[in-house]
């Protein structure tokens, strides 16, 4: 066999090996690919397609392609903008509570030197996070109840700060509804978010703050120049993740606010649900367009947040 032929054989053998390796890799990747296509890509493209049609769930007429008709209708509807703004307002109320309070708590718990006590604090903090959502909603609905809730009982019957006529109306479409839900959400996620920061704090070598203190840095300077920059990746993850979940809240609004269009809880997610499953012949094409507008808007803000909170240096 000539040298040229041997080189050719080697090259073919290499290619076959590469292909075999590639096949093996794809074989292992296949479950994830199937899952991704079936549970993520397909539904997204399906909804995208529906958003360009006049599909109504309650009729048996076939859906017709109407181009950007649904998008134009949604974008020219003041309710779309109002409902997006309401979701943003809730996010503005909620997001600081996922960073500042858990960060503060994490720093305090991190300083507890008694390991058993530190473990106890961690468990106590995590209790709300392991309560099922239904129980959390029932609990807070009772807490906030105008007539029989413990908060108003304290304000009216115990302290006499209010009367039955002017006591705060926490839920049900009043201006207090969004802050009330935000407080509930912050409480619910407190332990979960604190654990994120505790993990971040545990990854900071202890000699770094010690060295800073020896060099004369104040506790604030230690936090600002040593701790905070090293927690930036965690902050970024939390802000981006929780921004997404806060903007897309729906269960809480359905439970605490219903379908009153004047209610601050009538956000774009409720608008979408209302159109898709409640009103008329269930205009799911239009509802899909509302969803797409909300999702694309959120993605733009997420890119912006990723840039702002990106770890520097």
């Amino acid at each position, binding site marked *: 066999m000539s040298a040229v032929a041997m080189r050719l054989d080697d090259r073919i053998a290499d290619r076959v090996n590469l292909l075999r390796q590639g096949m093996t890799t794809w074989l292992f990747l296949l479950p994830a690919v199937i899952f991704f296509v079936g549970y993520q890509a397909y539904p997204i493209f399906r909804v995208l397609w529906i958003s360009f049609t006049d599909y*109504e769930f309650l*009729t048996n007429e076939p859906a017709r392609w109407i181009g950007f008709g649904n998008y134009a209708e949604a974008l020219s509807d003041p309710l779309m903008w109002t409902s997006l703004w309401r979701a943003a307002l809730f996010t503005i109320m909620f997001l600081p509570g996922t960073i500042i309070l858990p960060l503060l708590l994490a720093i305090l718990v991190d300083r507890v030197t008694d390991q058993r006590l530190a473990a106890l604090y961690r468990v106590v903090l995590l209790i709300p996070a392991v309560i099922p959502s239904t129980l959390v909603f029932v609990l807070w609905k009772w807490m906030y109840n105008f007539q*029989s809730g413990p908060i108003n009982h304290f304000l009216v019957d115990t302290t006499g700060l209010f009367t039955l006529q002017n006591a705060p109306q926490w839920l*049900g479409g009043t201006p207090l509804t969004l802050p009330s839900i935000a407080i509930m959400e912050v409480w619910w996620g407190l332990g979960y978010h604190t654990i994120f920061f505790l993990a971040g704090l545990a990854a900071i070598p202890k000699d770094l703050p010690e060295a800073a203190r020896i060099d004369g840095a104040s506790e604030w300077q230690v936090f600002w120049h040593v701790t905070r920059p090293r927690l930036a990746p965690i902050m970024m993850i939390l802000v981006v993740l929780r921004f997404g979940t806060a903007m897309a809240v729906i269960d809480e609004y359905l439970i605490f606010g*219903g379908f009153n*269009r004047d209610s601050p809880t009538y956000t774009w997610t409720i608008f979408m649900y209302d159109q898709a*499953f*409640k*009103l008329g012949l269930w205009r799911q094409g239009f509802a899909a367009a509302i969803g797409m507008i909300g999702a694309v808007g959120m993605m733009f803000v997420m890119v912006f947040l990723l840039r702002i909170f990106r770890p520097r240096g």
Partner: protein
Amino acid sequence: MTIRKEQEYILQQAAREQLLLGNIDRREFLTRSLVTGLGLAGVGAVAKTGIGTAFAQDRPLTPTFYQWIQDLHPSIPAVNAKFPGVNYQIAPVEGFGIERFVAEAKNKESTWDVYVGQTPFVEMSAMIEADVIEPWDDYIPKDVLDDIIPSIREECTINGKLYGWPFLLDVIGNSWHSGVTTKAGLPDAAPATWDEYLANAKTIVDSKAAPFGATFDAHGWRSLVPMAHSMSSQVYTKEGLFDFTSDAAIEALMLMKKIMAVSHPDILLEGASDGGVNGTPDEVAFAAQRVGYFVKYFNAPLRMAQYWDDPKALHLGPLPKFANGEGSTAFWTTGSALFKHGKNKEKAAEYIKALTYDAQIWKDSIAGTASGHPGQLPPYKSIYLEWDANKPDWMPDFVSLVRGQLDRAKAITNHIFGLQQFVIGKPLWDAYLKGEETDPKAAMQKVVEAVQAEMKRGK
């Protein structure tokens, strides 16, 4: 895939039935279940091995009920016992959704044969539009059809066909806490007119017998509509929508505002309740004995009075009238719909007849049981005639009062926006109730425009 699943399901159910009836032993049951679990191959194997007789049978009658119906009416299992093999199920939907039914109908199939839980004005039009249900006319016996109280029959009929077989009747009426009214020095009787009602409510507040005089449920179909009907039941447009700008509707809105002046401040709040159904602010106030009079369907005060020191202090009566009003009210039934793609349709009719005529269910509903006191009434003339002829010792007076009102009462007209028109309209008429809009007619005109705008969306 769906057909295969259904076949597997039928086999599993049939095997279960035969086990319960003692026709097969547990070992045979397990064998069949295992074979069925093999999917289509299993189905074929079952058929080949001769134990497919179960598959050859139709599936058992499969009704689906809402959980709350079962909770409020504990005698339903006794009716089921009269139908051996009935595959009684609880609806697989949260709240009052029909999504699953519609989705199945699109594939021309139905897991269930009959749906017990349909409220005509809420969902019947939608289910017809989506081709989910078919009329009962071919299956309901003529004597039963003629026995339905005419106003109820009208409620369940669209285009001359009976799409709903009525079961549980809810009528909006007035109830009061006699402990509160007596303390306020008021007579222990139902106020005949709204003027009297308002004067009494004010007396309750002024005398400090209770912090609040009266209350209502702020959902339009539970307050605006019955109050409008008490003036006139002719408040529907040609297309079947509620005529929000009619005189009766405006009078009702103004009445609501007057009642609010003697009521609890959270009366208009939504969303603090269980899906807008239970635990509404009016119910909480009435349960806490903080209010004298209460306008709502009777099962609400009956449920709330169970929390009182003395539940016997609850008295029920008809809705008051306007001075020149018709004296009608609103009602609705929760009944049964026949799935177009279901099976066992004759059997379903037999079952629903037995269910809706069951004497024990009505006694429990009206007199109450340890598990609840729904106060829902039957839809048939003959049952009331029988009670009139031989009044049972457990029969409260309010039943005959309500029956009397039913001849004048009217259900909300069926329309695809039957319920949603009130959901869309509430924030707009609330503007008048809250004082943000001074002209009730202007507020109601905005409701009309908003409903029309929503209807214009889509095809």
